[in-house]
């Protein structure tokens, strides 16, 4: 294959990775930004979304698109509910202490993962894409669904941005992020904001998972990679910065796609990790982050 089409394929693959990564990392970043909690169980909310998508789409017969749309609505809501309960039952009792919550979310990670293994099983199960259109390029074929994932992700990112910057809920969230105590003094119900943010963060991961599950299957261990990559993205972009998260996700996704196609996937991971190390050394707050108060 010639260089041009080769690069095009690499960029397309990278874009799909970026799209899903941006949504997942955004959830992680939001939770950290507002609550100052490192949610290690974030990848498991992603997995839970995928597993539920499978369960919902197999329960609904008829055209695959019906099941998929149902999954896209129900799975994130359910995951959000699980996260809401986890926040209420566990994190709130720990007073959002940074160290304790890390340990607690590690515990959640194992509980969710093992429950999935027990009730869903060890198999990788596929979900049929809502449509299967193959875009025929002169050099190779490409999945139309994959491109639609990129579009869907972009739309969701814009919506999140609008909510954060143009609505009252967004204003309250930003206020809580900026200064928790002052926000409380102004009558903002900080605990309710925390519960909501934790649920929304998990829902973003679940939406990303439902979008990706027709491409790669639902499996109970699938949460590990997104968690690691999300951390990389969030560290590079700056914890709590929406813009930084998106830019870093596109950067990591594209470089992963291109480097692993022209060199090797291992090299792509090495470079991503190296970038993280460099960012931590020279700009600990991340590319777009502000120094923690």
């Amino acid at each position, binding site marked *: *294959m010639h260089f041009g089409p*080769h690069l095009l*394929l*690499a960029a397309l*693959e990278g874009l*799909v*990775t970026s799209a899903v990564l941006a949504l997942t990392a955004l959830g992680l970043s939001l939770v950290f930004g507002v609550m100052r909690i490192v949610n290690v169980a974030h990848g498991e909310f992603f997995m839970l979304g995928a597993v539920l998508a499978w369960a919902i789409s197999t329960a609904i017969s008829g055209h*695959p698109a019906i099941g998929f749309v149902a999954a896209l609505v129900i799975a994130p809501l359910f995951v959000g509910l699980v996260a809401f309960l986890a926040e209420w039952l566990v994190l709130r009792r720990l007073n959002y202490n940074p160290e304790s919550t890390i340990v607690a979310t590690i515990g959640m990670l194992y509980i969710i993962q*093992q429950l999935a*293994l027990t009730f869903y*099983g*060890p*198999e*990788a199960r*596929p*979900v*049929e*894409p809502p449509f299967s259109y*193959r875009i*025929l390029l002169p050099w*190779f*074929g*490409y*999945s139309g669904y994959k491109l639609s994932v990129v579009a869907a992700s972009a739309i969701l990112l814009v919506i999140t941005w609008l909510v954060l910057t143009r609505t009252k809920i967004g204003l309250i969230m930003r206020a809580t992020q900026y200064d928790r105590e002052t926000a409380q003094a102004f009558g903002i119900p900080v605990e309710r904001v925390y519960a909501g943010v934790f649920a929304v963060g998990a829902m973003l991961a679940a939406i990303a998972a439902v979008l990706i599950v027709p*491409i*790669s*299957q639902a*499996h*109970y*261990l*699938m949460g590990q*990679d997104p968690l690691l990559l999300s951390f990389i993205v969030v560290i590079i972009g700056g914890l709590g910065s929406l813009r930084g998260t998106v830019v870093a996700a596109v950067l990591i996704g594209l470089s992963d*796609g291109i480097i*692993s*196609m022209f060199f090797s*996937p*291992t090299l792509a991971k090495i470079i991503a990790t190296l970038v993280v190390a460099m960012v931590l050394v020279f700009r600990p707050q991340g590319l777009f982050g502000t120094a923690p108060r």
Partner: protein
Amino acid sequence: MADKNGFFDLSKTTLSRRTALKGIAAGAGLALAPGFVRYSQAQSSAPIRIGFQSHRTGIGAAYGRWYEKTSAAAVKAINDAGGIGGRKVELVIEDDGTDPARGAEVVNKFAKQHKTDIVFGTLFSHVVIGSAPAAGENKIPYFVVSEGHHVASTKLNRYVFQPGITDVKSQIQSMAPWIAANAGKKVTQIFPDFAFGYDHRDYLPPALKAQGADVIAQIAIPPTESSFTKYFPQIPAETEVIYHVMVGPAVLTFVKELGEFYGSQRPQLFGFMDSLEATDINSPGLEFLDGSHFWEGSPRYAQPDDSAAQKAYRAAVGIDDNGAAVGDPKDVSTASHMFGCWETLYVVKKAMEDAGYKGPEDRAKLVEATEALKEFAEGPEHPQGPKTFNGKIHQCFGIQNISKVEGGKLKVVHKTKIEDGLYEPEGDYTKQAL
């Protein structure tokens, strides 16, 4: 440090005659108690305990579940027929998380804590390689059902055996003539980037060369990869056959993306069933495999010429004509590998009875008795087919199936012969000390 209270001064602790007599009486009473009587008979009637190192969690979990089902069925059949040497057989299961480090811990646990007679049942090659030294150190026989070439390479130790499933090197050698004659001469290989994949990387090129065909590209894929399109441009345009071996949960993605990449104008495909074990061949996206060929250890779908033994085995394990669990068509088995558990347990039975095995003190005798085995006839104990066993390399050799995907099923189109897969031994375990 002064010993003020005299805790360590033995001269201060006085042992009266009366106390001593009491102690002796109590000891004698214990020895005569019913519990001890039963214990002294243990060697003749207590069950034989087989430590089952199972992939209950981790990437091998789907295999682990079916390995457990098959082994439980084999143990039931053995016990219903009188057990091993008149003793019942009992499986002690421990999860190794499909992880080599935990695998070694589990072997130690079997040897030291559970004190099982043998260890059995491991599939993933990296777990076998990680656990084998522990089996050697504990001098506990370790019967694996792994398919990799590591046992037969004689790089492990004298306590490791693979008597129930043919190794990859032999499988490849026996199938290469068919690939060269029927699929194509220019082959591109796609394999997982770890031990099991390396067996394919190393043994396919010479085996094809001998048939006048060539491997023109080799593409290694990290085992945790979840997206594959980026590897496909490395497949040379003149490729006539893509030879694919994948393991792990991402194989469906692999096939689907291959389908999107090539569409209908694809090269021939030849795959190892390992790619699709525990996966329904009619899953969305797998239509692309229609007309392609697969290696199968034991056919997933019931074949018209199945032997009575094969039918009985399928019924005992509980799989229907489509190779899925009876009553749950979505629960697809790992038919190409799990028969090895059934057959290995019968080899253990034969070897234990030959050795007059009584307990862990006879483990060395069990090793020698296993090494003395020569062949296993096809029948209820070996439903996959006849096998020969080479005691020097601890490896069995059997027939292989090549199946075609046709109408949503796998139909066996070619069966190899045992001779096709024989090779010169690379070493001799029997020269190692016991």
